[in-house]
Structures are given as C-alpha cells and as structure tokens.
C-alpha cells in the first residue's frame, strides 16, 4: 500500500502544487520583480533599479512604523502568551464547565479583524469620550487599544494550543515529580513548561508574526491616526502603495523589506525556543 502511495505521489501532489505555484510562488516572484520597477498596474511595469529601496529607507514614517510595530509585537507576544497559558492551566483542572469556558474564550477568534476593529473603536471611543478625548488623538491610546483588541482575539486560539500541549504531558511524569516532593511552582517551571516547549514554540511564533503582520485591526481601529503615528508596517506599505501617484514601486520595495524582517525574526525566535525543547 505504502509503495502504491509513493508511486502515485506526483499525481496526488499535483493539484496542491499547482495551487501553491499560482497562489504563492508566482505572486512572490512578481512582487520582488516589481519592487525594482515603476508601475501603475502590476502587469505593466518598467525597470528602474534600486531607487525604490532608496526611497523606502529615506522614509522616516516607515522607520517609525518599524519601531512601533516591533514594540507592539513584543508587548502583544508577552500578554497573549502569559494569559493564554494561565487560562489553559486553569481550564485543564478538574472542575465543572471547562468546556463551556474553552468555547467562550475561543469565540472572539471567529470574528474578522475589520469587524473587531470597528466594534472596539466604538467601545474605546465611548469610554474616552467621557474624558473628552478620542482614540485618534494619541498614538499610545491606539497602541494599547490594539494590544487589548488583539489579546482578546487571539488568547482563545493560543489557549487551545496550550490545552492540547498540557493534555499530552504523561501523567506518570507529574506523579513522579509529586512523589519526589516537588512543589506546585517547581512542577510548573521544571516539568510542565519544559514538556510544553513545542506548544510554546508554535504559539510564540504565531503571535510574534501576527503582531508584525497586523493589518485589518490597525486599519479599522486607528487607521494610523494621529498623523500616521499609530501606523504599523503593513498599513504603511498599503498607504505608500495607494497614497501617491508613482509610489507603487516604493510600497512594493517596503513589502520586500518587511518580508525579510519578519522571516529573520521568525527564524531567530524559532531557533531560540527550539533549542529548549526536550524529548519526552
């Protein structure tokens, strides 16, 4: 049977492979090519060399958006993972109603980012109006607003991954630790967390890349107000592409830079947490 599968592998892989080429490889290569071009529509481009990259690096707003995004990614990474882990611990205890709570915490993840952004905008502005100010008037209101929004949206998802990880820890290991006299805290840090490293790797990878790539929520919650100070990288690229005549190529160059940054950070993070993973 296995032999048969191997023999027909190319045929079975072909549909997905086609889709992958059309949906990923081709746009990706086109994107890199376009970052060296001047164009109005993507099918009609003129090669101009690296001038787009020069413009992109000269852009102070782009640099600001990088630091703003990096800070956001780190803060949201910590908040999401600490709370998600705590919830996962709580909801794997033996008590009634854990399934209901798991469902409830997971639900925000099913709502789209744009919708969430507008809903939270109403909530935040409703509260801030009492102090006669608004979300669009201070970049840090927007920052913390985004942190709250994204945490609310993603904690449930990460929690599910952590719960799966917790449930796969063999009971005998925990029991042995208990018999050896390890306290609750010791068991958490010396047994549970090391055994959970694969889940932690995944969750951290997801939340840091999500933090960098954040777009919908940023667009609908603050749209970069005030004066682009709360504009994150993805939104900055989008606005560069559409904001000025003749700047499409610069937007594209920024997108390539952005891709390199996200891949580099994702790789470093993967390597750092992978090295801490233990064999069960």
């Amino acid at each position, binding site marked *: 049977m296995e032999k048969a599968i191997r023999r*027909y592998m190319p*045929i079975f892989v072909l*549909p997905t492979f086609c889709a992958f080429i059309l949906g990923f490889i081709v746009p990706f290569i086109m994107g890199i090519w376009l970052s060296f071009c001047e164009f109005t529509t993507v099918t009609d481009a003129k090669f101009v060399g690296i001038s787009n990259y020069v413009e992109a690096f000269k852009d102070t707003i782009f640099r600001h958006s990088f630091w703003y995004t990096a800070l956001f990614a780190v803060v949201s990474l910590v908040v999401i993972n600490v709370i998600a882990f705590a919830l996962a611990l709580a909801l794997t205890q033996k008590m009634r109603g854990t399934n209901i709570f798991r469902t409830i915490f997971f639900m925000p993840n099913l709502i789209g980012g744009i919708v969430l952004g507008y809903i939270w905008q109403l909530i935040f502005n409703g509260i801030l109006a009492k102090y006669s100010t*608004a979300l669009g008037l201070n970049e840090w209101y927007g920052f913390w607003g985004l942190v709250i929004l994204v945490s609310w949206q993603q904690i449930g998802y990460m929690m599910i991954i952590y719960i799966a990880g917790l449930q796969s820890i063999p009971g005998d290991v925990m029991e042995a630790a208990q018999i050896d006299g390890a306290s609750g805290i010791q068991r958490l840090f010396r047994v549970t967390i090391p055994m959970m490293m694969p889940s932690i790797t995944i969750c951290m990878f997801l939340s840091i890349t999500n933090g960098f790539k954040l777009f919908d929520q940023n667009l609908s919650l603050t749209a970069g107000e005030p004066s682009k100070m709360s504009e994150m990288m993805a939104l900055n690229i989008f606005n560069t592409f559409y904001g*000025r*005549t003749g700047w499409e190529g610069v937007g594209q160059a920024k997108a390539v830079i952005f891709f390199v940054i996200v891949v580099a950070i994702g790789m470093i993070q993967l390597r750092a947490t992978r090295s801490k993973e233990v064999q069960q």
Partner: protein
Amino acid sequence: MKKKKVLSVLLAAAMVAGLAAGCGSSSGSDASGSGEAKGEVYYLNFKPEADEYWKELAETYTKETGVKVTVLTAASGEYEKTLKSEMAKTDAPTLFQVNGPVGLASWKDYCYDLSGSDIAGELTDDSFALMDGDKMAGIAYVIENYGIIYNKALLEEAGYTADDITDFDSFKEVVEDITARKDELGFSAFTSAGMDGSSDWRFKTHLANIPIYYEYKDEGINNTDAIKGTYLDNYRQIWDLYINNATCEPTEISTKTADDATAEFVTEEAVFYQNGTWEYNNIADLGDENLGILPIYIGVEGEEDQGVCTGTENYWCVNAKASEDDIQATLDFMNWCVTSDEGVEAMCKDMGFVIPFKANLESENTLVNEANKYLEEGKTPVTWVFSTMPSEEWKNGVGSALTAYAADQADENWEKVVSAFVDGWASEAAAAK
C-alpha cells in the same frame, strides 16, 4: 486489481484536467446569441450614490442593443485602489474615471484620445474636456456644486433667513447666536464635522479648496508646486466656526462619520451642513421647500459676490489598452447615455446630475436649482481647484492635523496644520513622480 489502478489514474487525471481548465480560461463569456454586438462595456463607477441607477441604465442598454454592460462601483474613498487592481486584469474596465490633472498623471497612458468622438461633439463647452497636451483624455459627465446646505425652516425658527448671511462676519453672527440659544431652540448650528475616514474629505479637500482658490486667483495661476497659504487664517476661522458650533464636542469629531452628519441634518438636529448637490437624494426627506445652499464664506474681501463651489472631479476616460471592439462599444454606450431619452433621463432625473451635454434636462434636484440662483444673480462660482492637490498623502496630512487641532485649539497646533498644508504641499509635489 489492475482495473482499479487504471480507474484511479483516470480519476486523478480528470481532477487535474478540471483544475487546469479552471485556471486556464475565464474569458469564454463572449456575448453569444446577439450576432452584431462584438464589444463589451465594463464601467468602473466612482459614485456609490448613483450605483443602482447605473446598473438599471446598463440593463436597459443591454436590452436595447444586446451589448453587455457591466457596472462595478468602488466603495467611497476606494476608487484608486479598485481601479489599480481592476486595470491589471485581463478583463479590465473599458470606461473609468479620473478626478482631474493629478489623477490623469497616473493614468494618462491608459486614456484613449476622445477628440473627434461623438460624445465630444455633444459637450456644451470644450472646457469640460480634460486635455493632456493635444489629446482629449477625459470628458466631464457631471457638474456639481457644494456649499453649506441649510434647513430653511430651522433657520427661520432661529429668527433668520438666508438674506441675513452675505459674508463671513454675518454668517458667524448667525451661527454663534444659534449656538448661544442651542438649548432653547433644540438644535445646533452645524452638523458634526466628522473627521472619520468616510467624511473627512468634506474638510481636508472641499473646504481646503476655498483658500487655495483665492490664492490661485491672487497669483493668477491654476496650479502650483509650492502653495503659500495666504488664506490659511481664513481657513482657520471657518474651521473654528464649524467645530465649535456643532452638535458634538470638537474632541469627538475624529469618531464621527458622514452618515452621522447626514442623519443629524435629516433629523433636524442642526441647521447647516457642508456638502454638495450629490447628497440630495439622502436629504430629500426634509422636503424641497426646506432645502437651500449657501456659499462658503471665509472672510475674504469682496466675498459678497462669491457663489457656491461649482465644478467636477468626474471625468470619463476610455481605456486605450482595451480591444478595439470594446473601445467602440464603450464610445457608443457613452454617447447613448448623453443623447438617448432613457440615458439623459436616468442621468438628470434619477441621479440628479447636471450634465455638460446638449441634451441636459432641467434639474429636479432642489440643491442644484438653489445653487444656480447664485449664477443668475451674477455671483462668481468658486472653481474646483482641489483636483490640483498634489496627492492623497497631502490630504491625509492636512486632515490629521485638523483633527488634532480641533481637540486642542492652540496656536501651536494650528501651526501644524499650516505646516502640513504648505510644507506638505511642497514635499508631496516633489515626491510625485
């Protein structure tokens, strides 16, 4: 066993074939049946408020001639984005719009030369054509007005009529008096000056048009790479008046939308509402007898003779890169729209447009007729110069600065508006490639 294998290979092959066919050709939708109709029309419409009428009109045209007309409308503020992605497709729009010289700069390679076409001959005045050198790149299809729309009944209730308002000072008096008696009257002077992305064009684009217009007039120019900002103090005056006499606190305007402002006007919470003739269908519920439009006075000398802002940012362009059949079909469709009874009726009556073509009908749009009164009185309309604003980035910069200033109306915050306006103009003009 062997048979099974053959079957599975066949099945897999069929799946792949289906997939390949799926990605391969999607353009097999030629209008079969009607033998003579060769080309197709694909219109990317700019005006969401006219969307349904265009679709109806397209259907009528298809029924009459058998030519397929597709109408797609971009969401408010999303036209350039939609156009860019639609133009990259195989079935690109054959008929699209640019907003004036700045918009034309990015699309000029795509504009078919309309000079000598049937529709060009229908224009009442050649100034309604958008020229790119000798090439007629676009043709305006609607002339619009904007100003301060007001509710006549409420203004009377407050003890005034439009005749009391002849310049900025008299306008200010009326507005501030209404604000002072706001609780007693039960309504405010202005609707909320929403600076949310759906509505900020009313101020960062349309209101900003007026100081630019006066500066151009002083300098005797119609475009520039470096604005001086001579009338920015006047811009501040009128902006102050808008935000401090509105239905909401100035700090809240960043959260208010265009719909909020329209709703406030229709539910009689405010007397004044800056917008244009295109809003007629949305506010017609107030009754024609209650609607009027005022020029936007900003305190410039001699402004008693100023009319409302009249112009267009809607130029039809035909995609030069479309096939010849499609171009011909598009030209025929455009011409039909502005000459046939159905077309003219739909544009003038349903959409409420004033069209710069010979067949124009008298408007049923009260706001248009109110605006035309100023012309009859011999007042000078303010031309639309905002199509010379250097980029979207510039508008957004001014908009953000206006919002920040509204929240804290200190001089140093106004300086930031000035800087976004003047320095921003220079840097954006330099950045435009």
